[in-house]
């Protein structure tokens, strides 16, 4: 990213344990796009967490007089078919949409890292695990998602479970590729020569080095999960409609889109902004740890 990667003034030479992290974060946020993305995400999370604590406004409040009312100064995103405040519902919906994204990313990364490390480190496990991963990735994401939800039954946790199953193979593939490289490095040989047990090698020597590719996957899967949840809701196999996610908001107001486009526009913008910020942040993290770019800066 050219000139914008020029690092901020060097941190003081004192070797405090936190100093490396501060330096890393400074380099990450030196790119304005990445900083902006982080701020958008911070704001979204803060609104979702703190607004309901500070305000007594109820997102379920119906005001029939305000039915399908266009955006105004009081109601920034207008009102929906039941006269509910769309903006307020987006803030409350963020709790569920972010929760789905977070737990999907967490589950897929934990399972995928485990599978990927096993496949990458133990030659004998490589072929069976990876053929299973290939087979699972032969199903289009959304198709596997709807099939799984229809089998598990539509509920909040089943949607998360289905999405974890959909995205785990993706993480496994990335982690396996990195593990294959790490396995051959000198410090692993050294640890082996010193008689370190295999689980310890995986835990102390391989896993920490997988941090950056895994972190990138977290942000991307977080974004994909929010998008997929909305898609599943639209197809009628998502979270039950009474749970206000951004996806169920769009789906619920679909038939009023002709009269009141803001009812579907506003939650969609919330999805796009969040997903974009997550992916830009992930991209920033990837560049940060990319050795090719490091040499140049």
């Amino acid at each position, binding site marked *: 990213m050219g000139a914008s990667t020029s690092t901020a003034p060097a941190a003081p030479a004192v070797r405090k344990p936190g100093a490396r992290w501060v330096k890393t974060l400074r380099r990450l946020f030196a790119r304005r*796009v990445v900083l902006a993305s982080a701020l958008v995400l911070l704001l979204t999370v803060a609104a979702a967490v703190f607004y309901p604590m500070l305000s007594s406004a109820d997102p379920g409040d119906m005001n029939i007089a305000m039915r399908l009312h266009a955006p105004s100064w009081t109601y920034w995103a207008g009102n929906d078919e039941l006269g509910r405040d769309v903006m307020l519902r987006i803030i409350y919906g963020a709790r569920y949409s972010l929760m789905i994204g977070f737990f999907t990313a967490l589950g897929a990364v934990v399972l995928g890292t485990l599978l990927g490390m096993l496949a990458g480190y133990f030659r004998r496990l490589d072929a069976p695990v990876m053929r299973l991963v290939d087979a699972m990735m032969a199903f289009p994401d959304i198709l596997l998602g*709807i099939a799984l939800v229809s089998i598990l039954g539509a509920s909040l946790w089943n949607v998360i479970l289905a999405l974890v199953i959909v995205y785990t193979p993706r993480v496994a593939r990335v982690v396996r590729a990195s593990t294959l490289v790490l396995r051959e490095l000198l410090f692993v040989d050294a640890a082996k020569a010193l008689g370190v047990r295999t689980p310890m090698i995986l835990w102390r020597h391989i896993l920490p080095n997988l941090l950056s590719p895994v972190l990138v996957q977290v942000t991307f899967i977080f974004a994909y999960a929010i998008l997929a949840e909305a898609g599943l809701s639209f197809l009628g196999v998502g979270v039950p409609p009474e749970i206000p996610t951004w996806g169920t908001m769009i789906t619920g107001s679909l038939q009023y889109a002709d009269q009141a486009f803001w009812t579907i526009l506003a939650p969609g913008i919330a999805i796009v902004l969040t997903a974009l910020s997550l992916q830009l942040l992930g991209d920033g993290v990837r560049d940060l740890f990319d050795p090719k770019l490091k040499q140049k800066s």
Partner: protein
Amino acid sequence: MLYFLLKRLGGAALVLAIVAVLVFLLTRLASGDPVALLLGDQATAADIAAARVQYGLDQPLITQFVLWVGQVLRGNLGQSIFLQMPVLQALAHRAEPTAFLALFSVAIAAGIGVPCGMAAAVWRGSRADQLVSTVAMLGASIPSFWFGLILIQVFAVHLGWFPASGYGDPGAPLGDRVQHLLLPAIVLGVLNSALVIRFTRASVLDILGEDYVRTARAKGLSEGVVLMKHVLRNALVPIVTVLGLTLALMIGGTVVTETVFNLPGVGNLVVRAVLRRDYPVIQGTLLVIAAIYVFINLAIDLLYTVVDPRIRLEGR
């Protein structure tokens, strides 16, 4: 070459076999007895037991699987519970809109992705590069169904340029169908161009660093000739690869888009099957789509080896 070919074919066959096991298990794990569903509420316990024997559901799971695979290999994907026709026939009826939509979308994705990706690589690190990268990421952040709904609102409802849904009459001329497919193809093509952009950019960047590009420049060829003759031509193989991958991904993308635009394709079929728990249709569609994906990947691999002999050698 033969060794390589056999190795790839064997790998694809193995993946297909695992796909078959997964599809089989997936629908067998489903809650609710498919027989009870098939016979309806009126069926007695004895009826259900008789039907279970008739469908072989009283056999052990392994036997059931072997029987099912035998049927599939003979081209029998089973009978739809709701459509009163074989699954294969239902799929064949719905194949045309999906195939056209997927191809049309790939064409749009290529039309956007290849030039943008090349430009981003050539002017690497510039404002244009950053803009293209960010816009590509934006494309990957927009829910396709929502983008479709917005386009319908703007171009179909307000401007009236395109029909909002459907595929025209069965006998309608091709032009009419293209008009019905244009909006959905734009949705899929634009949103999936991100992948093409990223891939084109990366492969063009690789080639720009090659010695023969430096040689071409050194002997005084104009930048345009270098780009078209030396860079683009060598980047074509990875670009064709990513277009193939995009085509495979599109088939999944059509599931949502066909529902938004109410196109009578395979995606629409499977979504309805899911809502009605028509398991034979779900099973058949999953199997066929996954098989298409595996075949496209295999074809890409083989194409690669034909075009680029270096890969053949590495495969040994």
